[in-house]
């Protein structure tokens, strides 16, 4: 294992890319405001000058586009950092919120809330994120228990995750079929997207994702120790079971917060940590924080493509992440041939 450290230069570069992606995404959008005019609007906001944008156009930039870019960043960061954390906990390069049943659990629980108490769901706030969190935790927990009882190991864990995800998804589909009046609402949410989100969603997810991200970054060193082996960890005074529970809780909370506002957006959690590993080494002290930044950049760019490639129409963002993620997943599978077998 490479003992890479998070050097200031690497961190600065990552943050620079992040800021650049936020700025570029804020300049370009389906409304076709003209990026030079948006720059002048931003300058006017900062210096108190005169903006070329009308009130409506300014609302597009500050009420719609900018918060959406930030939310894409938050959701991407949450999914990627959870992916990295799951990979550390399960010592499994292919783990991510989707393969381990976390997203399916969150989706099922959120669907059950929507169909049983559509008014209580009220969208975003209230019982929805809570249910999603419980569902995410339940999904991962079930996968873990089943995987261990079947003998453990990478392949068995993955297969358990697939079975659990399929099972939970089937419950969700059944609930939807019984409640066709709310089916549209659920489907919209399932496909994933950030289209009608604003500051409300940003402020709502920010605390959950911040707390999870801090916990996970602090656990990076512990994950490195776990990667060596549970006995090694115990000999160093670390309790592997407790570390796993803390990391799982934090990762599931981040996943649930992301899923609650954006629906199901796949493959971020697997693509980003692997790119980070290829670029910066496999130490979790590096992988976890860089996945956080990388996930944000990845989803900001993916959402940028989703919202502009067929503008003024829009693609579901899951199409973009799956289009880049699925081939990548196969690549990772190939690279890890020996371990998966």
């Amino acid at each position, binding site marked *: 294992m490479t003992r890479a450290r998070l050097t200031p230069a690497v961190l600065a570069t990552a943050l620079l890319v992040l800021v650049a992606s936020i700025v570029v995404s804020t300049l370009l959008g389906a*409304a076709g405001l003209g990026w030079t005019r948006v720059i002048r609007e931003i300058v006017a906001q900062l210096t108190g000058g005169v903006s070329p944008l009308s009130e*409506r156009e300014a*609302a*597009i930039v500050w009420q719609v586009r900018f918060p959406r870019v930030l939310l894409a960043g938050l959701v991407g960061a949450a999914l990627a950092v959870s992916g990295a954390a799951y990979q550390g906990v399960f010592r499994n390069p292919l783990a991510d919120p989707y393969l381990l049943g976390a997203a399916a659990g969150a989706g099922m629980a959120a669907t059950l809330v929507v169909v049983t108490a559509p008014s209580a769901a009220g969208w975003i706030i209230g019982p929805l994120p809570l249910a999603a969190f419980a569902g995410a935790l339940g999904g991962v927990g079930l996968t873990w228990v089943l995987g261990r009882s079947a003998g453990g190991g990478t392949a068995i864990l993955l297969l358990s995750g697939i079975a659990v995800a399929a099972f939970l998804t089937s419950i969700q589909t059944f609930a939807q079929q019984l409640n066709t009046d709310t089916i549209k609402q659920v489907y919209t949410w399932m496909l994933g997207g950030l289209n*009608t989100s*604003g500051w409300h969603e940003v402020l709502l997810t920010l605390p959950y994702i911040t707390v999870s991200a801090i916990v996970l970054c602090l656990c990076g060193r512990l994950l490195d120790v776990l990667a060596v082996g549970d006995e090694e960890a115990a000999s160093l005074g670390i309790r592997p079971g407790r570390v796993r529970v803390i990391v799982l809780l934090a990762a599931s909370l981040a996943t649930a917060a992301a899923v609650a506002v954006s629906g199901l957006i796949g493959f971020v959690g697997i693509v980003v940590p692997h790119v980070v590993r290829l670029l910066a080494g496999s130490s979790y002290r590096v992988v976890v924080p860089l996945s956080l930044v990388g996930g944000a950049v990845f989803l900001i760019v993916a959402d940028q493509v989703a*919202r502009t490639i067929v*503008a003024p*129409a829009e693609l579901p963002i899951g199409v973009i992440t799956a289009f880049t993620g699925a081939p990548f997943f196969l690549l990772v599978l190939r690279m890890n041939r020996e371990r998966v077998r």
Partner: protein
Amino acid sequence: MTPQTPRRARRLALALVGALAIAGCATRAPEPAPAPAADTFPVTVTAPDGKPLTLERKPERIVSLSASATETLFAIGAGKQVVAVDEQSNYPPEAPKTTLSGLTPNVEAIAGHTPNLVIASGDAGDMVAGLGKLGIPVLILPAAKNLDDVYAQFELVGKATGNAAQGADLARRTKEDIAKIVHDTPKTDTPRSYYHELDTDLYSVTSKTFIGKVYGLFGMTNIADAADTDASGYPKLSAEYVIKANPTLIFLGDTKCCGQTAETVALRPGWNTIDAVTKNRVVALDDDLASRWGPRIVDLVRAVADALK
């Protein structure tokens, strides 16, 4: 099929033309349906897909798996013949609603109602072949593309169920009602644009769709037209594009499914700058009215007209 069928069909067609001609110029008080000859069976009708469908006798046990068809059946007085309708058919209230599904039809469950005619909006899961093996005729009435399709389906359902005169009459009345509503709606010189919302993910319709044609009656322009890059007729719009397009009117077709109202729209980020929102021109439609091509299409046209007054 007997050798006489084509000749019978031709005779029937002639009788129908006669019936329609009489119905067409009837400006006097309505008389009871003339032309009993039109409802003699067997009858061969041409489904919208162009295929002929022969019904040996008057269908007294009809199963409807299409909410639009259910409304049509009851509007033309064929309600007594309907034994079961699918779970989406929630109008009229007296329709015998069941758990049957038109989206995922179960041939056994449908056959369990021993129908002698099944009407559906599509052939999901090869239902036609499945029911065909049991000798149950199926009439597929796909989503109408324009108002003429609607009228044709009224007449078709009438013929197939032995209510030809009522079907033709419904078509004529609907056409007249819509023409009158459109005529009575004041025209404006400034073009009015609109956005019709299908769901909270901002899927919309273009003016090429059936619903878009209804708005087209009033000469409105559709902001979704420019976004229909794949010509599906149902593009997904960006929130910022809708705001930029600044529609004069917003019509919500997602009030029942997704709880949308003028208030929820006004609360969406940035939407409070849209003219339709600031001038209280956000119109909450009944989801069902805005998605069915049945007799209540008149109510939809009226709702749109009211929004323009």
